[in-house]
């Protein structure tokens, strides 16, 4: 192949490499994925962006999770304190926790909300 053709090939490779490098460094994980955990196991993965109609997830031990309008919350629980229900919709990096029923609802990909942990956030202490 002629030299100029080689140069054109290398230039094209360089362009593709730079484009790939930019894509890899700028891609972001989906931030609408929520995990519902019970007893430490992921029992349901919900993409809030895809929930067109409201629906409920019934968990063992009396918890019902509602997915609606891009939000997820604990609709009902048989726990005595009802703190998980009162918390409302999942926001930021603060998970919804039902301690008696060992349920945790949290974003799977947590965007930087400006903090790494929350002191005093968990009920039942």
């Amino acid at each position, binding site marked *: 192949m002629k*030299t100029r053709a080689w140069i054109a090939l290398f230039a094209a490779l*360089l362009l593709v*490499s730079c484009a790939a490098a930019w894509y890899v460094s700028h891609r972001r994980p989906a931030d609408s994925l929520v995990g519902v955990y019970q007893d430490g196991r992921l029992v349901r993965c919900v993409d809030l962006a895809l929930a067109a109609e409201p629906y409920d997830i019934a968990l063992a031990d009396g918890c019902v999770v509602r997915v609606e309008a891009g939000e997820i919350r604990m609709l009902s629980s048989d726990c005595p*304190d009802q*703190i998980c229900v009162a918390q409302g919709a999942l926001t930021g990096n603060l998970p919804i926790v039902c301690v008696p029923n060992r349920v945790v609802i949290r974003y799977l990909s947590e965007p930087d909300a*400006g*903090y790494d942990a929350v002191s*005093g956030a968990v*009920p039942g202490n």
Partner: protein
Amino acid sequence: MRVTAYRFSMWTRISAILLIFAILAPLCGCEAKSPKSQSVEFFTMDTVMELTAYGKNAGTALHAAQAEIIRLDRLLSISDPESEIYRANRDGFAELSGDTAALVRESLALYELTGGAFDITVYPLMDAWGFYSDEYRLPSDEERARLAGLVGSDRLALEGDALTLPEPGMGIDLGGIAKGYASDRAAETLADNGVASALISLGGNIVALGSKPDGMPWRVAIRDPLDENAFSGIVRVTDTAVVTSGGYERCFELDGKSYHHILDPATGLPARNGLISVTIICESGILADGLSTALYVMGEEKALAFWRAHLELFDAVLVTDDGRVLVTSGIAEAFSSERDFEVVR
């Protein structure tokens, strides 16, 4: 020997340079990735625990720390018949293992240090209010007065590792410092297993081990006692415990009035001394845990006087019942908030 000199054409040199760039360019996209973290989440001590660690041995270290916390729960539980505390409360006597004895000693020291504001012998009062059974009730004045006769850590006898509760009906509850102690032990276990950067949350009791992998301090938000989705502020810490006590953590309503679980040992009633949240920031998880309860009981004036008398031990963020956020001067530079706050000296 004949030496052959090679001369490269200009196009050949350009080709070689472009080839080198083509190989190296993708490496520019491989940004220095932050180290991968590993986490474990589990329920014990009646709450949820989350431990996150960084480093090659993080997985092994986390499982060791988890096992240690579960071991401590079995020793310290007031409801597990196999636990030493359960047996002490049932029998009025128990020969304690090393960890339990150490915790009781620490509790007695905190009782002295805080003038009785921290007291593990509130067990019979907590039981009467229903905080153990979740069958909440309002003890009568007579009942509280009778049970108050069983309260007072100075009545406990600890000789070596042998604990005696001298009066029938006395009981102890190490819940006020158990998570703090467990968080310290978890941090030690992680460090012993080669972890230099970790974040431990035991029911909202936070211990930061080292700094973040990028060298920056950990950012710990303090929950707003009046709004579960807001924060009183954020404190930046390294190798520090951050523990918050607030009545909102466990309470019930009866006849339109709210009653929370942080009892004043002197009155047997939920402490209502002007504070609705106390956050302690110090090196020791067990101290932070105990003092967060004690200062809540003390109220604003006594709590700040206590801090001034023990500046070297801890710093604090207090939230008053009229919504003021008070930050002690030692932590003020590391504290930030969208709300107004006062720096206390």
